[in-house]
């Protein structure tokens, strides 16, 4: 089972420059996917989640276009072939 992770340019540098990563998620959940991603790319993992494992406040994750905040958060299902997008939310100044 493989899903595709799509990264914004600013994070791609932390994954060897790749904006698209093929990842095999553990357990078929977003949490498992991010665990695998962090194990392979620790600095990238820290940008997305803090050390408690929570997705950072101003980071948004979409699975096949659906915001995971309304799909169970880290427990959200990540089916085979899904596209998982990581995006910065609209914030800042």
């Amino acid at each position: 089972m493989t899903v595709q992770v799509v990264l914004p340019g600013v994070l791609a540098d932390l994954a060897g420059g790749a904006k698209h990563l093929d990842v095999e998620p553990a357990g078929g959940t977003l949490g498992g996917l991010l665990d695998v991603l962090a194990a392979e790319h620790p600095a990238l993992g820290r940008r997305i989640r803090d050390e408690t494992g929570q997705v950072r406040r101003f980071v948004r994750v979409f699975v096949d276009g659906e915001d995971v905040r309304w799909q169970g958060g880290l427990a959200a299902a990540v089916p085979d072939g899904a596209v998982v997008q990581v995006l910065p939310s609209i914030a800042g100044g």
Partner: protein
Amino acid sequence: MTDLLAIGTRKGLWLALSEDDRRTWTLGEPHLLAQEVAAVGIDTRRDRPRVLAGIQYGHWGPSVVRSDDLGATWQETDEGAVRFPADTGAALARVWQLRPDSADRPDVVWAGCEPHSLWRSTDGGCTFDLVRGLWDHPHRPTWEPGAGGGAVHTVLPDPGSDRVTVAMSGGGVYVSEDGGGGWEPRNRGISAVFLPEPAPEYGQCVHKVAADAGDPGRMYAQNHFGVFRTDDAGRSWTSIADGLPADFGFPVAASPRTPGTAWVVPLVADMERVPPAGRLRVHRTRDVGATWTESAAGLPDAAWTAVLRDAFCVDEGDPTGVYVGTRDGCVYASRDEGETFELVVDHLPDVLAVRAARLA
């Protein structure tokens, strides 16, 4: 001879160099552009000076980065230099202080962070360990966050002993005499006008503390109302605010070479965080706070801004250099111990931290 001035702002870090004993400064291109740089440390104990920066990657969280080539390249520990252990259930919110220790502890660097925590590195700032003695202190759950957040913002390791002093807004001063194992609050004499009990054991809003050059037990504190001095390592504090136009403010700095000399930058009050009459001024004492002298030359009038706690520092030059960064993006430097100032740069983002050091 080269002097380095590091300017951390809300949107990046700037490094300025002086080759003429701090008469003129050359500002480089921005580093870490668009990242908040709330803490800066310059470690001159190494073969090559190391610049440490506590940054906020905007959406992507806080981190510590370091450069051994004056910003040409930056390194970051993959797993994070400051990382809360899992059992704490906490997550790093911001790095507020990066403080290299003394020359005889060459790889030790301290970090003060939000949430209230103290960290110690023994590898020059690549990785830090949580100081459990302070984290586990029974008072910690009751320390209040200030407007900027709840953090250890001041770390003062005593070069001659195992004493470490920390300060927190909404927590006060705590001191360890054994290098960080045990901690006790030392706030007697520091007022807390914002609390029903005016003289609590802890909970004071201490904005910054600086150590005197001559006496390891002597320190100066700029409080949330009040300027104080201790001569007994914090066990008691006395007001030294007489002679100042206001006793509110954020920074205090002490001379690293001349005992009894310190500087503050008064603001009107907590509900009016601007210089009195809009005139930005530095005030200096040469007699441990008995009297104060205003420094005006080179500092602006009609400056409705403020100087944050770490946007003020001194260097180790002779005479001592004094550096002032403002929330409206200006940095002023003095090479005569605060008698006169010159504008180094303006139109930067809000200045959060300045640090200066003489490089070999």
